[in-house]
């Protein structure tokens, strides 16, 4: 699978302070890539470098095969972006705003179109109505933006990213300021776009929001990329946890300790929990049953993204 974003040793320093430190990103086509990190970890700085808005101190970027910042505009033809909150014109309506934005880069879009093979054509005409529809602003599209709530403004920013069919969406904290309903809709929209073949690079510090939609994850902290890989891989880094419920918990505990070398703890609920280690679940089940202990619960709990994140960074993701 082709990589839509790759960076090598990407670094940005402001004076002595390293905002991004030797980050090697690799975002495969077709993925929904969650770029995770606490506030101030370097997510936004990285995204701005990907879009050519700020210049790296060191390192290389390739966006859709084009080096950035050298060929930023050629890459951006296929990229929709939401960068760190909305940037709107208060006196324009949503519709007029999208019209204005769609007129930027039309020349480059046409040039790209004529250079491409027929089957790989890109849209030159924006679909403003469709974009408003997708983000649920159709009914208020003629209202001036200054009357919008923060969530509506965020939706409008997203609509701008969706003016054309894109190969890649770069969304920096797209759910900022949205109500729970909006967050759910955003999630559904991303899933829908991904199913249509759009690669989505989405940053967030609220892991629960994107846990169910990401196929790939990158975790950044203090400007350094701590982990990058498939979602399952991140979870797999944490040992699987067992919870055991029996008719004789103390006997069960002794047996698990003696036979398998496990370290069960008794929870408030009365269940025994422990890291599974390399022990197979069916061996545990047969051992307990064989010892005449009544077994009513034996479950393996998958670790949450949040738990994996805490284990990786040593801090909760949502520190804000």
């Amino acid at each position, binding site marked *: 699978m082709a990589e839509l974003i790759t960076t090598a040793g990407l670094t940005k320093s402001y004076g002595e302070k390293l905002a991004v430190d030797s980050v090697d990103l690799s975002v495969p086509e077709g993925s929904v890539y969650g770029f995770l990190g606490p506030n101030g970890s370097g997510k936004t700085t990285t995204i701005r470098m990907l879009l*050519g808005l700020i210049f790296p101190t060191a390192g290389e970027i390739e966006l859709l095969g084009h080096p950035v910042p050298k060929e930023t505009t050629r890459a951006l033809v296929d990229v929709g972006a939401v960068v760190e909150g909305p940037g709107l014109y208060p006196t324009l309506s949503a519709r007029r705003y999208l019209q204005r934005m769609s007129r930027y*880069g039309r020349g480059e879009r046409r040039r790209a179109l004529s250079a491409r093979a027929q089957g790989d054509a890109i849209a030159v005409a924006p679909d403003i109505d469709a974009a408003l529809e997708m983000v649920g602003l159709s009914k208020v599209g003629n209202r001036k933006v200054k009357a919008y709530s923060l969530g509506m403004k965020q939706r409008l920013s997203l609509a701008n990213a969706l003016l054309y069919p894109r190969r890649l969406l770069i969304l920096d904290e797209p759910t900022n300021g949205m109500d729970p309903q909006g967050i759910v809709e955003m999630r559904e929209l991303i899933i829908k776009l991904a199913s249509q073949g759009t690669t989505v690079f989405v940053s967030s510090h609220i892991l629960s929001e994107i846990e169910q939609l990401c196929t790939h994850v990158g975790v950044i902290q203090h400007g350094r990329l701590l982990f990058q890989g498939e979602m399952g891989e991140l979870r797999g880094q944490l040992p699987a946890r067992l919870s055991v419920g029996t008719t004789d918990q103390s006997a069960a505990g002794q047996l698990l300790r003696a036979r398998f070398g496990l370290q069960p703890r008794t929870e408030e609920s009365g269940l025994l929990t422990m890291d599974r280690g390399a022990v197979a679940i069916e061996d545990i089940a047969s051992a307990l049953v064989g010892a005449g202990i009544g077994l009513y619960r034996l479950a393996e709990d998958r670790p949450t993204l949040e738990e994996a994140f805490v284990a990786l960074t040593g801090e909760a993701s949502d520190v804000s």
Partner: protein
Amino acid sequence: MFLEELGYVIKRRRTLVSFALLAAIPIFLGVVLDIVGSPGGGHGQGPAFFDKVTHNGVFLGFTAVLTAQLIIIPLIVSIAAGDTIAGEATDGKLRYLLSAPVSRTRLLAMKSLVALIYATAAALTVVLVGLIVGAALFPVGPVVTLSGTQISLLDGIWRLLLVGLLAGASTFSIVAVGVFASTLTDSTIGAAAVTFGTVIILSILDGIPQLAHIAPLFLTHYWQTSIDLMRSPVVWSGILKNLLEQAGWMVVFFGAAWARFTTKDILS
């Protein structure tokens, strides 16, 4: 993108207010002259051609634009030029414009071009409103040049338009300085204030005899040469110097603006 930018600027409320202010200058001058009449004696007091307006309404256009050229037009042009980049940087709009497939050089060029058109339109507004108000309030007829010769009304109007174009072109250096200032800050007001301040300081320095040997470098130095169009024959040397002066400032400051904008980290 160019038409979008032009349309966006034209429809702004700030533009409407600015151009209303510009139109008010000839209207105000014309009404005052209509009520109180020509200044007594007529010994070249007041703005250029001021004493001729009541005899020939065409001169209202000249008087108005030569008056507006000193403060009002530079002020309005400073604001428009200072707004080009800084205005987009406020509220984080710039990062979205640059997330579109538009090179920074192109964006800067388009914004600058629109500002140059804006400056020209500002000067022409004064001239045209002056001409209309002058024709409505006073008699119009063949125009007497500064050399005492008479030219046809049509020729006079043509020269009036040229004076207007020159007044606009005289502010091109201001546009360049303003666009550069605009790439240095996120504040429209800050960029506009620096630009207008530069113009005012240079026009003050221009009058200091001790600086006479460097005064030809000041962007304001040849502003008054547009009056040479009203001589017979027209004296072109000063006008050409003015255009050269403006071109020099444009190359330097648009160049600096390009250097700054194409290498700037967009953090807003």
